[in-house]
């Protein structure tokens, strides 16, 4: 603490190592950055705070040379520079740890680190010995333990992140951008990361820390810049900043938006999951002994940090992923080993998938064909394998009207619609099949405010119609405003159950593996 204060006073006198002035970037339909000013001082951790879509990553990708700004300038050490590619940003001392790691799984730690700046023998041959030695030296200096000869694919996520940091340090990065570094980490790993960041700071590195988590900001940052919808709201020092104050800056409203809804009247249990286990795509257990119940007429929210088994849990329940143990029952009937079609047709489970464009829709199909995606084999869509396109169209026309889908008719290609309307099409399809259970995975991701409101209202409407709804979301707002009960998923386990009156802090605590939730589950 003392040290930190000392550093802070020291910094006041220094010039910024980096300045961004009036950065503007327009994407088709979105003004991602709108005249943003930003500065970074030496040995500082400057947090860039904002909701998803606030423009944080865009700004940093511009700094790293991945995007070109439409307007504005970048000054490093007082010199104006412009980067056309990372190739030009790296020599200027900028390093970036991407949210999705830029590592080559089949190669070793040392190979990944030295790539494109390899030590050589006689200028021709790769000097593996020198590379390993340099990696070891860097590891020691910054307290990052790593075996240079280990393959990336054998490392944990936390270790991989260290490789990314070393990669930047190896290139003498004086400015390190960390893009949502804790999103994929366990709490222990996050704690270790913060230790690493403090060491880096001591050694003279300046750090830009992108996040949307308030507690992290208060723990690690020296100053905080808040972005909202592409605009800079304010830059404040940590001293005096509070979570409430930051939250207000971030979302721009005093209280969280809550949907008007009557209290739930839960009925009989619809979905019962017991001791469920499932593996992820790499054969590692992603869902570990999950048990939960969803009753008719209630919305059960599943909160959690990304990559804690949400996707696998949803896929296991909807028959898209094989379960390795446990039991799934719908309305008392066992559907443990059922495939996707059985879950749709016999278990009456509807599924609003996480990825609209990759999974929810066939973008090259017409809306009519997309709406028939589950039912094309049944009457009236088809009989004995014979398809009746006009019936598909007729149904689509009715549903598009009912769900207020704009931007096209039944024959329009799904890919031509906006994100919000695409989501409406999916909801129309799922709801119109009259499912008993509805699984909604991140149903509002990437949607604008109007569309979000539509989706939320519709989910509550369906709840009131007596369906059971399992809502999986990374957005705490959404979980808190919609759920009647909240379960927290952490590392593939349910670590706590909360009423909707729970505070964000309590939830956040449980989501990161802390608190009584974990004890209760243990």
């Amino acid at each position, binding site marked *: 603490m003392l040290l930190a204060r000392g550093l802070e006073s020291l910094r006041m006198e220094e010039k910024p190592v980096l300045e961004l002035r009036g950065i503007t970037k327009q994407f088709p339909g979105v003004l991602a950055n709108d005249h943003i000013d930003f500065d970074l001082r030496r040995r500082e951790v400057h947090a860039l705070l904002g909701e998803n879509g606030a423009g944080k990553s865009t700004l940093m*990708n511009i700094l*790293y040379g*991945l*995007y070109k700004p439409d307007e504005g300038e970048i000054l490093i050490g007082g010199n104006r520079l412009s980067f056309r*590619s*990372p*190739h030009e940003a*790296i020599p200027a001392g900028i390093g*970036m740890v*991407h949210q999705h790691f*830029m*590592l*080559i*799984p*089949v*190669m070793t730690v040392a*190979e*990944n680190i030295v*790539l*494109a*700046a*390899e030590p*050589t023998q006689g200028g*021709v*041959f*790769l000097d593996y010995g020198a590379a390993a030695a340099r990696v070891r030296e860097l590891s020691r200096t910054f307290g990052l333990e790593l075996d240079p000869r280990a393959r990336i694919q054998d490392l944990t996520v936390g270790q991989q992140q260290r490789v990314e940091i070393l*990669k930047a340090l190896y*290139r003498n990065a004086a400015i390190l951008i960390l893009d949502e570094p804790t999103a994929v980490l366990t709490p222990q790993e996050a704690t270790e990361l913060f230790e690493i960041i403090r060491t880096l700071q001591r050694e003279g590195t300046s750090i830009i820390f992108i996040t949307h988590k308030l507690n992290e900001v208060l723990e690690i940052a020296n100053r905080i810049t808040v972005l909202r919808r592409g605009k800079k709201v304010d830059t404040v020092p940590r001293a005096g900043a509070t979570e409430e104050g930051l939250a207000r800056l971030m979302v721009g409203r005093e209280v969280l938006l809550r949907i008007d809804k009557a209290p739930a009247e839960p009925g009989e249990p619809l979905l019962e999951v017991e001791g469920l286990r499932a593996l992820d795509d790499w054969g590692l257990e992603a869902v570990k002994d999950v048990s939960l119940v969803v009753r008719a007429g209630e919305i059960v929210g599943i909160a959690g940090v990304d990559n804690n088994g949400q996707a696998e849990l949803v896929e296991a329940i909807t028959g898209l992923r094989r379960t390795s143990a446990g039991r799934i029952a719908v309305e008392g009937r066992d559907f443990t080993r059922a495939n996707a079609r059985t879950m749709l047709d016999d278990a009456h489970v509807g599924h609003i998938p996480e990825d609209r464009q990759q999974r929810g829709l066939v973008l090259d199909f017409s809306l009519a064909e997309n709406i028939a995606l589950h039912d094309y084999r049944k009457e009236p869509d088809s009989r004995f394998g014979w398809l009746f396109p006009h019936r598909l169209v007729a149904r689509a026309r009715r549903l598009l009207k009912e769900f207020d889908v704009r931007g096209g008719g039944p024959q329009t290609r799904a890919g031509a619609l906006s994100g919000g309307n695409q989501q409406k099409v999916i909801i129309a399809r799922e709801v119109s099949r009259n499912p008993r259970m509805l699984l909604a995975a991140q149903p509002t991701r990437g949607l604008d405010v109007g569309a979000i409101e539509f989706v939320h209202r519709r989910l509550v409407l369906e709840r009131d119609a007596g369906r059971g709804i399992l809502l999986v979301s990374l957005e705490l707002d959404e979980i808190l405003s919609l759920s009647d009960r909240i379960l927290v998923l952490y590392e593939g386990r349910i670590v706590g159950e909360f009423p909707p009156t729970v505070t964000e802090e309590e939830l956040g605590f449980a989501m990161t593996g802390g608190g009584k939730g974990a004890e209760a589950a243990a």
Partner: protein
Amino acid sequence: MIERAAAQVSNRSELLALALGPRRIGQLGIVLGIFAAWIAFPPAEVRTAVWSIVIAVPALACGAYAIRNDERRVGWGAGATAVLGAALGYLATLSGTTHLESVFVWSALVATTLRYATPLVFASIGGMFSERSGVVNIALEGMMLAGAFFGILGADKLHSWILGLLVAVLAGGVFAAVHAFFAIHLRADQIVGGTAINFLALGLTGYLFIQTYGDQGTPAGISEIPNVSLPGLRDVYFIGPALGNLNLMIWLSFAVIVLSYIVMFRTPIGLRIRAVGEHPRAADTVGISVYRVRYGAVVLSGMLAALGGAYLSIGFVHSFNQNMTEGRGFIALAALIFGRWRPFGAFGAALLFGFSSALAQRLQDYSQSAGTLFNALPYVLTLIAVAGVIGRSIPPAAIGRPYKKQ
């Protein structure tokens, strides 16, 4: 637990197995399988199948052991060689010794194998560069054909095989550059593009061949790539007839293998090529130009494939005719996959496929139909390899995916 362990180690063969490890056991099985066949052929020529079968049984056991211990590729290999060894041993005893001795002149077979393998080596090493950088190259066939034609054209018109090779390399590079442009810049489907290059090369070489040489075909007396005769070796038993008088390009192909290994796995260039083929975005973010690396790799692949083709026309057959590569580019592709995108792996596969071609050729004197069937062997083996029965061949992660800069 302890009891089970003790029971496992109780007999001596198990001890041996534990000491050697399943992989070695599997390899031992392969050696035994080959031995089972070998004894029935000249010079050993055991005239009963009993011994072949007796030797094949432990080979089979070794294979089974290896498979059970997760060394599937080696294990299946051992099993297959054991069965094949016994079968070949049996078949050999059925035919007369004179026949056997006329076909199985081992030193000549080695020389012929190398002759057939060399074009495959050049093309598959070329393919390795392209595919390791993430660009599928099913156009090896076309690039090879281009090399074969332009090689002989150059050697004829410029009166020098060296210039002929140069022209061939240039032509292969140009075809490859077209493939690269469509695959990399235009982000076209790489398989469609490769197919197109194959058609184009076939048509263009055929057209220019007829235009230049008409119905007469290439004239005799075109400058040829010389053979390297090693006077010191000529009279050494076996080595003399096998290696004493091989074409220059065969020796060059050995150099290419070693060199390509060094470049791919011991230099920064190779590291970058592999990085681009595995995760182009990661390579891009550290400042590697994905496009440049891919262009380089694809063009190099065309040049190497063309060298293989040129060897075919001015080093081996000494003439050209339409579609003379006859699918050798695809065998090279098969060798590349069978050899798991590695230089020595591809070389091993090329030797195996070359051997089957050599055998096919020599068997013609003996039984026409049996020889023909041997030509299908490379394709059958590769089909089995991609089916994963003997351990999957896993391609570079980003292969076939056009890269788009952000």
